[in-house]
């Protein structure tokens, strides 16, 4: 099946504080920041300049984040289907 990518990124930061997350996001051009309710330093960054869904990955935005020394790991979120039973 064709993979579909979203404008959301899972980002793991060195400093798990919310302020640090907002700072990194703002500097790297990401608008939305939300903490993932478990794990250490896991955040969801949203980029309003990328389409909500498309079949092409945003390698540029991912690398832009990965270059930041405060960032441990980045993965762009895929969109998939779940059905009610």
């Amino acid at each position: 099946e064709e993979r579909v990518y979203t404008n959301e990124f899972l980002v793991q930061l060195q400093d798990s504080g919310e302020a640090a997350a907002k700072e990194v996001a703002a500097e790297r051009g990401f608008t939305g920041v939300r903490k993932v309710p478990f794990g250490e330093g896991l955040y969801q960054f949203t980029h309003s300049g990328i389409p909500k869904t498309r079949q092409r990955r945003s390698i540029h935005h991912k690398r832009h984040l990965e270059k930041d020394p405060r960032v441990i790991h980045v993965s762009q979120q895929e969109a998939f289907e779940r059905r009610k039973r």
Partner: protein
Amino acid sequence: GYRRISDIDVDMNDPLFSKQWYLINTGQADGTPGLDLNVAEAWELGYTGKGVTIAIMDDGIDYLHPDLAENYNAEASYDFSSNDPYPYPRYTDDWFNSHGTRCAGEVSAAANDNVCGVGVAYSSKVAGIRMLDQPFMTDIIEASSISHMPQTIDIYSASWGPTDDGKTVDGPRELTLQAMADGVNKGRNGKGSIYVWASGDGGSYDDCNCDGYASSMWTISINSAINDGRTALYDESCSSTLASTFSNGRKRNPEAGVATTDLYGNCTLRHSGTSAAAPEAAGVFALSLEANPNLTWRDMQHLSVLTSKRNQLHDEVHRWRRNGVGLEFNHLFGYGVLDAGAMVKLAKDWKTVPERFHCIAGSIQEPQTITSEDKLVLTITTDACEGKANFARYLEHVQAVITVNSTRRGDLNLNMTSPTGTKSILLSRRPRDDDSKVGFDKWPFMTTHTWGEDPRGTWTLEVGFTGGTAQKGVLKEWTLMLHGTQSAPYIDQIVRDYQSKLAMSKKEELEEELDEAVERSLKSLLKEN
């Protein structure tokens, strides 16, 4: 051992109560009297779900509904796709987002309020985690929902999954897997979150072992029967199903459907599909948690195995069989229909099961050719890591981690037989699955059928093709993973009913422990001489 219907003097003024045959089956709509969740016995003992919170992970709950408002837990409700702390179901002309409200009613609809029906755990609290009404799902939304407030939410009920089209193989992604692992290890202050999953709507074209959520060891996968004990037409079957509850599924008679709450203060008699199975089970587990709040996620699975009943469940395709320690199971219904009365009584005195161990029993990594002419038969002989710290002597779950490709995935058939002769169907034919590229890549086929058995000995895996045309394939890996306890889990349990499965299992354990003790002492005597 069944009680007479007339013995049950549960009287509620809720208008739909008499139609909730899954609570008390008196033969409504040509049903089979006595074929229900036996909640009356649990209620009579005083267990109605007090102090327990169940989260319905779905499309939201109508928290203004008069039958739900009182039990709604607003603080534990949320929507992670739109950051909404008040996740009310979004309106559509066809009321498509009624799913969560219907499931909520089956668990926590208030009793004796003259509205709709009664929840299985009518004093429990229900939270709505809205996650199914956005255009697509992501790993973050799923993981965030599954790990929401794990110290407040006890049970997560899910009546959704990958598409049940008979050709999908999918499951939780990386972050969601991590969230589930976090939940069972740290949730409920270390006792473990209880995840309940409706096994699927794909009917005979599908196999719920291809659904990574339902076939996970960390979820209790629940199938459904209809009111006369037959299978629902949409029921899928697989070896990872643990037990069953009820849903509609075969009859046109509207009263054979599941009665529950509906959107905008309404009620319905027609909650259809296997989705009702999970909330009903969540309600039964809530009653058990009230009886014993210290139950762990594994205790809940042990209680399900030991107290579920064959009752009058009938599967035309798969026979009921007994495993190596005498536990009766069926490939579709698992260990049978949940029995709330028996479960709360056993839960009350239950001592938490011993520590769990994991043993990689063996692995075959050389590519093996599979043809249509004859079956590929492989064996792994194991001592289940005996003598090592992770010896797994009394089985809980068993996984066959398999990598296989073939010219038509849907025609593949996998069966695994344990040392004591228990045969599990790990994968049935899926006629619609024409995949010839992806196959299965380290897919963990799970079986609950060998529960309680001694895994030492030879395990056999049979791989073949079923279907009209000749096919070819290559099996690249089979790794056998054993999960269970080192010490006998039932030997210290209090037996009150000497006809129960617990009594039988405990007797079996005592005999085996005695045999092994005698054997050990003989060996040491011989050594000395």
